[in-house]
C-alpha cells in the first residue's frame, strides 16, 4: 500500500546503484531460497539422531537410482499432478479451487461404485475406461456443486470448495461404512476389492501403473487447450483482467462453470487412479492430502501445466522420502511434511508479492 512517503522518488544515482546490486543479490537470494529449507530440516534431523546427508542422498538415489524408486516417486506424483491441474486450470481463469481433495474423493467413490456394482464382469479393455469415466464424472459432479454455488449463489469458490472437501470425506465414510462395505472385512471400513482385471496395468519390477502416463497426457492436454485454443485464450483473458473479458463479450459464468467441471473431472480421475492403480479398494482415507498437495504444487508452478510436471515430481519425491524416513529411522512419515512446508515457506518468503 502506497503511503505518502512513497511520493518521493529516488535520486538517479541511488536508483542506479540499487540496479547494479540487483542481479547479484537475485542469484544469491535464489540459492538461499533453494538450499535453506534442506539445511534447516537437516538440523532438525541431526537433533533427532538422523543423518540428514544420508537421507537426502537416499532420497535422490531412490528417486533416480533404480526403477523401483523412480516408480514410487511417480506413483506419488501422479495424483498430485492431477489435483494440481485441478487447481491450476481454474486459477488461470481467476478462480481459486481448493476442492481437489473432495473432488478426488468423490471420483474415487464413484469409480469404486462402478467397479464393484456394475463393471465386475467386464474385461479390462472395457472396464477400465468406463471406470475412468465414472471417476471423472464423480469429480466433475462434486466440482459442479461448487460451480453452482458460485454462479447461482455467488458464494466464493474457495470457501465453498473447502467446505465441500469435508462433506466429501464424510460421504465416502458413509458409503464405506455402509452400502459399499466389504462384507468380508470384519467391520473394518473399506470397500470390497475391485476385480483383478480392472486394476491398471503395472510396469514390471515396480508398483508403477500406467496412470502416470495418463496424468502426463492430461497435463499436456490442459497446456494445449490453454495455450493454443480459442477457449484457452478466453480463459486466460478472463484470468488476466475480468473487466476486459466482460467488455470483450466473453461469457464469464460459462467459463467459470466449465473450468470448475473440468477441474473436478481431473481430480476425479486422480481418485480413480488411486483405486485402480494402487489401493484396489476404497478406504475412508483414500487420497488424503493429495488435494492440498496438488494446490501447493500448482501454486509453486505458477499454475503452468507443464511446470506442474516438475513441481509435482518434486513433491512426490519428498513424499516418498517420508516413507524412507519411517522405515529407516522410525520417524513418522508425516514429518516429511515439514520439509515440504519449509520449501514452500522459503519460496513464499523469497518472492516479491504486494505487501499487505
Amino acid at each position, binding site marked *: *500500500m502506497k*503511503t505518502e512517503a512513497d511520493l518521493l522518488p529516488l535520486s538517479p544515482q541511488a536508483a542506479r546503484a540499487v540496479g547494479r546490486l540487483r542481479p547479484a543479490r537475485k542469484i544469491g537470494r535464489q540459492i538461499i531460497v533453494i538450499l535453506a529449507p534442506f539445511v534447516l530440516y537437516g538440523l*532438525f534431523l541431526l537433533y*533427532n539422531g538422523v543423518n540428514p546427508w544420508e537421507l537426502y542422498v537416499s532420497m535422490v538415489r531412490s528417486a533416480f537410482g533404480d526403477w523401483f524408486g523412480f516408480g514410487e516417486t511417480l506413483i506419488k506424483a501422479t495424483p498430485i499432478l492431477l489435483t494440481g491441474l485441478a487447481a491450476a486450470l481454474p486459477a488461470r481463469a*481467476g*478462480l*481459486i479451487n*481448493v476442492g481437489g481433495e473432495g473432488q478426488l474423493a468423490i471420483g474415487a467413490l464413484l469409480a469404486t461404485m462402478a467397479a464393484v456394482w456394475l463393471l465386475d464382469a467386464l474385461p479390462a479393455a472395457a472396464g477400465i475406461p468406463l471406470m475412468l469415466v465414472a471417476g471423472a464424472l464423480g469429480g466433475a459432479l462434486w466440482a459442479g456443486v461448487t460451480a453452482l*454455488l458460485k454462479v447461482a*449463489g*455467488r*458464494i*466464493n469458490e*474457495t*470457501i*465453498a470448495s*473447502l*467446505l*465441500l472437501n*469435508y*462433506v466429501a470425506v*464424510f*460421504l465416502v*465414510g*458413509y458409503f464405506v*461404512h*455402509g452400502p459399499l462395505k466389504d462384507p468380508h472385512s470384519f467391520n473394518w471400513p473399506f470397500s470390497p476389492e475391485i476385480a483383478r482385471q480392472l486394476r491398471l496395468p503395472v510396469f514390471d519390477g515396480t508398483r508403477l501403473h500406467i496412470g502416470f502416463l495418463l496424468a502426463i497426457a492430461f497435463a499436456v492436454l490442459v497446456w494445449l487447450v490453454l495455450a493454443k485454443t480459442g477457449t484457452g485464450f478466453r480463459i486466460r483473458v478472463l*484470468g488476466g483482467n*475480468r473487466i476486459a473479458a466482460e467488455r470483450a463479450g466473453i461469457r464469464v459464468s460459462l467459463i467459470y462453470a466449465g473450468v470448475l467441471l473440468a477441474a473436478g473431472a481431473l481430480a476425479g480421475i486422480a481418485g480413480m487412479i488411486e483405486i485402480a492403480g494402487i489401493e484396489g479398494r476404497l478406504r475412508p482415507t483414500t487420497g488424503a492430502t493429495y488435494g*492440498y498437495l496438488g*494446490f*501447493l504444487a500448482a*501454486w509453486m508452478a505458477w499454475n503452468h501445466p507443464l511446470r506442474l510436471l516438475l513441481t509435482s515430481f518434486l513433491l512426490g519425491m519428498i513424499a516418498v522420502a517420508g516413507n524412507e524416513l519411517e522405515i529407516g529411522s522410525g*520417524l*513418522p512419515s*508425516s*514429518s*516429511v*511434511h*515439514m*520439509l*515440504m*512446508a*519449509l520449501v*514452500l*515457506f522459503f519460496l*513464499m*518468503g523469497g*518472492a*516479491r*508479492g*504486494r*505487501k*499487505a
Partner: protein
Amino acid sequence: MIADILTGALRSGTSVMLASQGELISERAGVINLGTEGCMLAGALGGFATTVWTGNPWLGALAGGLCGMLLSLIHACLVLDRGANQLASGLTLMFFGIGVTAFLGRSFVSEQIVGFNPVPIPVLSDIPVLGEVLFNHDPLTYLSMLLVPALWFVLFRTRIGIILRAAGEREEVLFACGVNPRLVRYAAVLAGGFLAGIGGAQLSVAYTHSWVENMTAGRGVVAVAMVIFAAWRPFRAMLGAYLFGAAQALQLTVQQQGLPISPYFLFMAPYVLTLAALLIVERRKRSSVPEGLSRVFAADADG
C-alpha cells in the same frame, strides 16, 4: 440423554470454539489463516509437553497458546511482509504444523498426565439439567465461555474493536486516522494463533489427557469454516462450534443406542449448514464479509 449430549457438545466443542474465536479476530482484521489446524496442533503438543514437564496444566495451557502464536507468526510474516498468498501460506502452515508436531511429539505419545478435570461450580452445578450441562466442565471450557461475551464487547463496544474491524474493512480509512493497519493485522493474527493454541491445549490437556499425532483431525479447518458460518460474529461462532461438538457427541450416543442414522450425516451437518447459511447471506443485499477479506477471495488473492 439430552443432557449428556449437550454436555459432550460443550466439552468437545470448546477446542474448536477457542480456535474459531481466534480466527474470527484474525479474519476481522482481514487475514485468513488456513493454518489454524497447525496452530492448534502446536498448542496441543506444547501444552501437553509442558504439563508433562511441569505438572502444572495452567502453565501447559499458556505454553500451548504461545506455541500456537509462534506458528501464526510465520503466517503473519509471509503474508504481511512478503505479500504471500494468504491461502497458500495458510495451507503450508497447516502441513508444517502437522509435520513438526508429529516429529517432535513422538516421545509424548505414551505419556500420562493429570491435566484439567471437570470442576463443578458449587451450587450452580446442582441445578437440574442446566447445572450438569453448563457448570461441570474443565477450567478452560469455563474460560472459553467467558471469552465469547468479552470478545463481543471488545469488538463492538471498544475502540480497539473498531480499529480491528477497520483494518479488515477499509485499511485506507484506518491509515487516514493515523493507525498503521499492518500492525493491527499482525496483532490480530498472533492473537488468533494464541487462541488456537489454547484450543489445542484444551484438547490434549483437558479433553483427552493424551497426545496423538494429528489429534485435532481437522478441527482447525472446521474452526475456519465456523467463522464464515458465523458471519464473523462471536456468538454465532460459539453456536457453530457447539453444533460441531454436538454432532460428535450425538454420534457416540447414536452408536450406543444402535440407531440407524449414519453418524456421517451428522458430521456433514455443520458444513452443509454453513453453505446454506452463506447462500442466505448472499441473498441479503449486503454480504457481511469484511471488505478487506473479500479481496483475498477475489482473483487478486496474492497478498
